[in-house]
């Protein structure tokens, strides 16, 4: 089996293990919740009969392994349970807010690439210039700053002091301009750290690639610097950047929780957070599961995209009959 196929098989196996592990773990955590879940969900004034009926309805009277099996089966069928408070299927609730979180995450990543890539390319082509140094200081500051601090500071500066941008919510449905405007601050708060990351990474990998023989050859043939950087060097320098983006999505999803809470935007983070405050554990469980799924699947996608970016891997995969 060629190395790249084995790598893919390995990745798929880990992905499945992670998902199974996450489901089992989330189930086990609910077992450890202090107190009987029926008591917790129904509140202190529930009658013993109500608690007993509810326990039976939720299957709480079954042995643990049966409950785990049922939980697995339900998750596989996309059944995340019913919300006790509103009586609606939890999957519907998650699906309603998912687009907001996905939009925010992609807007942030897009913004980070759009700003970070040229900054890194500039820094690599002008090493040790004043611009490079200022960029380095900003990069490290933005990387170091926790994104919820950035979010609160942005809120403070642009909404409270300057009163330039509206603060809260995701905007009226159908009013795209309003939605876009309200997307600015949350996505900037998430993107800023990644701008720094990407700029630094692109700078260092570009500097490395620029020293390669094929770049020297291209230069000797008289290809212009701009063409060398944007057509040849950047593509190879992008490989480590893509790897970082895979990790980035996970951190961004984590960060999205803060951005959603601070800017009062609907989203998975807000859903989970509100559920934590009301001790609505099934919703917490479902929300976290969806975030883990998103994270794991994007990581898988990122790993597979190496093949597209790095033809050496694609070649060996094709030779093995795969892809």
């Amino acid at each position, binding site marked *: 089996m060629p190395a790249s196929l084995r790598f893919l098989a390995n990745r798929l196996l*880990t*992905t499945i*293990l*992670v998902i199974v*592990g*996450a489901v089992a773990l*989330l189930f086990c*955590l*609910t077992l*450890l*919740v*202090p107190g009987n879940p029926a008591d917790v969900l129904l509140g202190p004034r529930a009658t013993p009969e109500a608690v007993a009926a509810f326990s039976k309805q939720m299957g709480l009277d079954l042995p643990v392994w049966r409950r785990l099996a049922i939980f697995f089966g339900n998750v596989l069928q996309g059944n995340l349970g019913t919300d006790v408070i509103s009586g609606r299927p939890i999957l519907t609730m998650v699906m309603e807010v998912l687009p907001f979180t996905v939009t925010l995450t992609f807007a942030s990543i897009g913004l980070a690439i759009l700003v970070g890539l040229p900054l890194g390319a500039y820094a690599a082509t002008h090493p040790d210039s004043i611009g490079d140094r200022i960029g380095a*200081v900003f990069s*490290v*500051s933005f*990387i*170091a*700053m*926790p994104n*919820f*601090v950035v979010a*609160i*500071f942005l*809120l*403070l500066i642009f909404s*409270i002091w300057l009163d330039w941008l509206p603060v809260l919510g995701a905007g009226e449905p159908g009013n795209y301009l309003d939605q876009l405007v309200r997307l600015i601050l949350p996505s900037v708060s998430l993107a800023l750290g990644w701008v720094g990351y990407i700029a630094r990474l692109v700078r260092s990998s570009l500097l490395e690639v620029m020293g390669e023989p094929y770049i020297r050859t291209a230069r000797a043939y008289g290809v212009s610097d701009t063409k060398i950087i944007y057509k040849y060097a950047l593509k190879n320098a992008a490989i480590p950047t893509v790897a970082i983006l895979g990790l980035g999505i*996970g*951190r961004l*999803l*984590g*960060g999205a*929780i*803060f951005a959603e*809470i*601070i800017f009062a935007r609907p989203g998975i983070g807000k859903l*989970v*957070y509100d559920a*934590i*405050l009301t001790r609505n*554990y099934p919703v*917490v*469980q479902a929300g*976290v599961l969806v*975030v*883990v799924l998103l*994270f*794991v699947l994007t*990581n898988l996608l990122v790993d597979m995209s190496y093949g597209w970016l790095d033809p050496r891997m694609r070649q060996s995969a094709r030779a093995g009959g795969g892809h």
Partner: protein
Amino acid sequence: MRGVIAQIWGRSTGRLGLILVVLILIMGLGAQVISPYDPNELDILNRFSDPTWIHPMGTDHLGRDLFSRMLYGTQTALLVAVSTIIVSLVVGTLMGIGAAYAPREVERAILILFDIISSFPSLVFALAVVALLGPGLGKVVLIVSITLLPHFGRVARAQVLSLKNAPFLEAERVLGASRARLVLVHIVPNIMGPLVVLASMDIPVVITIEAGLSFLGVGVPPPLASWGTLLNDGYANLTETIWPVAFAGLMLTLATLGFTLFGEALRDAIDPKLKTDR
């Protein structure tokens, strides 16, 4: 040791990092001595005070002195960061060394476990655990140290593998040294450099997670002060005063920036090779 500090001091970013780290350490370790007030002393009549000579950072929504709370928050952040890193460093290193010496199947199992742990979005995972099990300092330390295990484990394993067949270890073995002696006396000191660098670079990560969880109200339980809870209190009262948010955010930024710069300078001083690895 002196050489390393001199090298860190020799770079402007390293110097800034070192100064910030020392400052944070003084604030955290000396909180009891420096604090002008009891951090939990209420003074409702004097709530939302702006910074004055009496209250250098002002007061919060219950009239508590913000400067004192900020100092105790520094202590909390350091306590959580250091204990998390120590747990993770010790357990992770042992697992890594174990993996390097274990039979292939065990090694593979450990590596898969590392893959699984690092495939979880750590913050969301931590959030789920504390949300379900209730807040607590110990729980935060435990969860975050689990999420950091793979960092230390992978590096320790790689280091041991590159060292395992070195001639000086061969010589020790021939002389009859036990495996425990080989690991503890010869291997551990030799692989410590990169691990210490990793540890210092993970400190800002832990500080951020702790503050983040506390900001969401599921980290450090009240009335304990944490930069995260201070930020949250300030955020809830943003219409009254901006100072708590400004100072708590500033402290967090300075701490994470300081430890990041310090960690990077330490890495360049101890083991420049790591630079390309991360």
